[in-house]
């Protein structure tokens, strides 16, 4: 057996380039598998543990206000296992630097542990219900804490019911509903500086909002297997007298939806991405082994004649593939563990999960080892099958020159006859090795497709940003007032120096009723002549707002099965006074990428409330020179609840994109490696097979350059169509990927700019050139003297 081991080493050394190439592809596949799967496992596990430890709510009910006593009633509903009543409101914060922020003040009855959506203290200490100094103690989420450079003991000025209160920060905490902190779905990314979560004892919030003995949210956990519809209906009935503003299941909870979308995205790529690399590696192993067995037919015959049995010989050849996989898997595991830690760091940055996401997942490593060995064994044994049919006697006869088959192109004599001999040779060589051709093309197509996939997120985000910031809306600031104001109030703001344009908006939370089904929505009232904010069609073109009727959000349209022309009933959910009802006709559907609001005219919004000329906020465009001046002036105005700066939003998105650059460049590198190895292998195989033929060309008087151009002619007809094919394949892959990510908060279009296609095609050319160049160096070493080494 020692001899065979020695022979294996010899074979590996003789094909070192190919051996390492395959090993690298396996390594890439395995490291992707480990990186992504570990991230998926760990993220999923830490989500699950976090949800379990903190009793993550199954259902949310928002009311105007309800006495705490209804909690008992809700608890009595069959299927309900745990109920918590609390107060949650978004309120303004005045920062020391005169800037504004918004915090989502959330109350917690003490002790917290057994409540729905309890929180976990991360740092500092828990608030006390009755601090010794008589003030208010709060916890904030770590993102807000860090972004605003807070310290424990610091005071924050909040505004509740039009009164300013100083509150003391005593710690940081997170909860299962705060894993991804965004104000609402109209934000693309969190902005920790201007939006945070503030946690206070329940008694304090009741005082702050003047809601003694009351709550404005009821959150529940349901028994597994309970009749959810029945239970939800029963709870809604209990809450009906208290102004049911909204009710939604866990899957519509924003941070959960974001986390789940990430998980489903990881799940999707954890399969297909490694699969691409591993199956191409398996393919290369297969064709290399088949070729090896063919050329070593005589040696196999001799081995059989000496007395080795089939099993030993098959195992010997298969061990080549297995060695490739062992080397590849080893490197892949090392790099995979590194990648897993990079992923974990990234997710730790994105999501507020208290348990560490990181850590080596030995199970995944074990799977990856099995996976790669499986690839080696499969490729090895299937490729080795022909060994069985080699008979020692027959194998001694020398093999006739490899059979040539005519190329399909020869059916086009007009074209074929114009070709030079070297082109004819190239086409025939290609068509003789169908399997290799198929593999090479599949490899190039995959590599180019992966290049597209690596680059397209950038395009999609760029497109979305353009839509969001330039097409659908072009304002610089959006303001919300504490309560509706008369249109004339805007004059105060428009008088500020640098304000170029100000337009009133009326945002009206509503419940849309249609065929006894409902969907909560936000009516955005704007003046039909407004220019700073618009609804948009599917292709991004803005839709003018009608004087009467509603441009319904895509979300509601999909949930309720609405089409243009249908009439819906809207019920206002203002949280104060009586609900108003109105019937409105749908004039269009709003495919705006973010926020996904429904649009009505200002007049229509007022009419629903039997009011006139009221606004709840404004959007404005300003001269950038005056931006900070205007910001600080606005911050001083007491009637303003929140100020959203789009520049900040844009900066946040850009910095998020910047953090993705490593991912993108790694993927680009992997794609190029894949393409390089596939070309390299194809050229080396073809070269090795025809060394003598090519050397004989040198004796005739071909220069090495000319011989190398013959090799090129073989690569070009395989590479160019594959690169071109890779472009639509990349688009398809991107669509498949997006289709697999379920996140209905945003509408992510598959946008690939022409420039990305061009870049991917160029990338394809680069790896083709590189692979050909490296493999083609063999031509320089081609020894013509070998030809005279005769058997005399």
């Amino acid at each position, binding site marked *: 057996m020692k001899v065979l081991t020695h022979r294996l080493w010899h074979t590996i050394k003789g094909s070192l380039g190919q051996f390492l190439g395959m090993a690298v592809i396996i390594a890439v596949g395995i490291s992707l598998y480990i990186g992504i799967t570990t991230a998926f496992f760990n993220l999923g596990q830490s989500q699950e543990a976090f949800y379990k430890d903190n009793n993550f709510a199954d259902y949310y009910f928002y009311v105007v206000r309800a006495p705490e006593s209804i909690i008992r009633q809700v608890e009595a509903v069959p299927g309900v296992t745990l109920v918590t009543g609390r107060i949650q409101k978004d309120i303004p914060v005045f920062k020391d630097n005169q800037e504004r922020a918004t915090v989502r003040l959330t109350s917690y009855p003490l002790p917290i542990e057994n409540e729905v959506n309890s929180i976990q203290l991360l740092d500092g200490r828990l608030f006390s219900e009755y601090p010794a100094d008589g003030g208010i103690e709060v916890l904030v989420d770590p993102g807000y804490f860090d972004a605003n450079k807070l310290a424990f003991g610091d005071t924050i000025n909040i505004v509740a019911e039009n009164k300013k209160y100083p509150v003391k920060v005593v710690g940081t905490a997170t909860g299962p509903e705060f894993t991804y902190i965004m104000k609402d779905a109209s934000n693309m990314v969190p902005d920790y500086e201007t939006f945070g979560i503030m946690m206070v004892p329940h008694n304090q919030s009741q005082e702050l909002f003047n809601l003694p003995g009351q709550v404005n949210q009821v959150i529940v956990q349901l028994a597994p297997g309970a009749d959810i519809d029945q239970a939800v209906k029963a709870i809604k009935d209990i809450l009906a007298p208290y102004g049911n503003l909204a009710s939604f299941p866990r899957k519509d909870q924003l941070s959960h939806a974001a986390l789940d979308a990430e998980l489903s995205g990881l799940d999707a790529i954890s399969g297909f991405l490694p699969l691409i690399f591993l199956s191409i590696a398996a393919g290369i192993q297969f064709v290399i082994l088949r070729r090896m067995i063919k050329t070593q037919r005589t040696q196999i015959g001799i081995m059989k004649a000496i007395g080795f049995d089939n099993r030993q010989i098959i195992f010997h050849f298969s061990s080549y593939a297995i060695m490739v996989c062992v080397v590849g898997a080893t490197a892949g595991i090392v790099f995979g563990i590194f990648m897993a830690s990079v992923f974990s760091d990234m997710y730790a940055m994105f999501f507020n999960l208290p348990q560490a996401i990181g850590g080596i997942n030995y199970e995944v490593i074990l799977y990856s080892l099995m996976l790669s060995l499986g690839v080696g064994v499969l490729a090895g044994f299937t490729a080795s099958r022909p060994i069985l049919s080699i008979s020692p006697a027959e194998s001694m006869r020398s093999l006739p020159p490899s059979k040539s088959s005519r190329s399909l192109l020869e059916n086009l004599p007009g074209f074929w006859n114009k070709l030079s001999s070297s082109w004819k040779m190239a086409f025939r060589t290609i068509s003789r090795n169908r399997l290799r051709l198929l593999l090479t093309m599949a490899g190039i197509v995959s590599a180019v497709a992966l290049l597209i996939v690596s680059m397209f997120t950038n395009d999609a985000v760029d497109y979305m940003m353009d839509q969001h910031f330039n097409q659908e809306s072009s304002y610089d600031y959006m303001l919300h007032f504490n309560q509706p104001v008369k249109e004339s109030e805007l004059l105060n703001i428009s008088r500020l120096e640098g304000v170029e344009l100000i337009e009133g908006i009326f945002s009206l939370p509503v419940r849309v009723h249609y065929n006894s089904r409902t969907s909560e929505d936000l009516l955005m009232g704007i003046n039909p002549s407004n220019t700073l904010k618009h609804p948009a069609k599917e292709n991004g073109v803005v839709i003018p707002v009608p004087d009467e009727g509603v441009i319904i959000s895509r979300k509601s349209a999909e949930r309720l099965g609405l089409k243009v022309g249908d009439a819906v009933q809207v019920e206002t959910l203002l949280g104060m006074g009586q609900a108003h009802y109105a019937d409105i006709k749908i004039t269009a559907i709003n495919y705006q990428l973010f926020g996904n609001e429904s649009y009505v005219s200002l007049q229509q919004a007022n009419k629903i409330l039997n009011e006139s000329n009221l606004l709840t906020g404004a959007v404005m465009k300003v001269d950038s020179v005056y931006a900070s001046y205007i910001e600080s002036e606005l911050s001083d105005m007491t009637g303003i609840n929140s100020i959203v700066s789009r520049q900040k939003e844009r900066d946040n998105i850009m910095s998020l994109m910047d953090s993705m650059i490593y991912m993108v460049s790694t993927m680009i590198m992997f794609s190029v490696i894949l393409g390089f190895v596939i070309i390299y292998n194809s050229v080396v195989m073809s070269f090795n097979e025809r060394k003598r033929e090519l050397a004989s060309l040198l*004796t005739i008087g071909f220069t090495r350059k000319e011989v190398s151009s013959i090799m090129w002619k073989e690569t070009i007809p395989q590479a160019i169509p594959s690169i071109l094919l890779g472009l639509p394949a990349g688009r398809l892959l991107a669509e498949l990927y997006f289709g697999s990510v379920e996140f209905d908060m945003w509408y992510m279009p598959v946008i690939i700019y022409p420039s990305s296609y061009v870049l991917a095609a160029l990338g394809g050319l680069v790896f083709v050139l590189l692979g050909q160049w490296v493999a083609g160096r063999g031509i320089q070493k081609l020894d013509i003297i070998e030809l005279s080494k005769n058997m005399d």
Partner: protein
Amino acid sequence: MDTEVLMKLNNVTKSYVMGEVTVEALKETTLDIYSGELLVILGPSGSGKSTLLNIIGGMDKPSSGEIIFKDRNLSKASDHELTLFRRNEIGFVFQFYNLISDLTAGENVELAASLVKNPLTSQEVLTQVGLADRIDHFPSQLSGGEQQRISIARAMVKNPTLLLCDEPTGALDYQTGKTILGLLKKAQELMGRTIIIVTHNTAIGEIADRVVRMRSGSIAEISLNESPVPPERIEW
């Protein structure tokens, strides 16, 4: 026989350095090659025949010495100059035919023809080797002897000054081998080509105008053959 010297080798040596050991494949060798002659180089295996032929054909550079081809000093030629020399002046035939398996017989010949300015037509040379009817066959569809004839046609289509054959019959059976030698002889007689055949088969020496005998890297003897025997009459 014409006595014009086509190529002159003066004190040519070739040694291969392999680590510590230096193999003197060719010791100081001086040889004139006459235009239009059929020269046979004989010698046992390893005696340096191929080395000598490769140096004559510009496939290899000598370690020392001088090679003059038609007043050109080839010993100082660059790789590229040697390539051009092979392209324009030399036709090679080997023991193994080394045809391009993905080109038909005709295309193999045309490929070589495409290299030079005034080639013969492939039809013409294939007729000369008696395979005009196999022009569209691939090497895999031809017997060894037929492949060797295609390889001769491929060498001749460039209309080379020198046709160099290294063991051209080595892989062929007796009868086929003789046919090949007949073809080479015909090429000399009808076309006036200079032909060098390297072989370990002493019987082949009988067809030569001159025989060079080699032993362990040097020329042991050069003998003139007053009446060469036609190839179909020799025996081994």
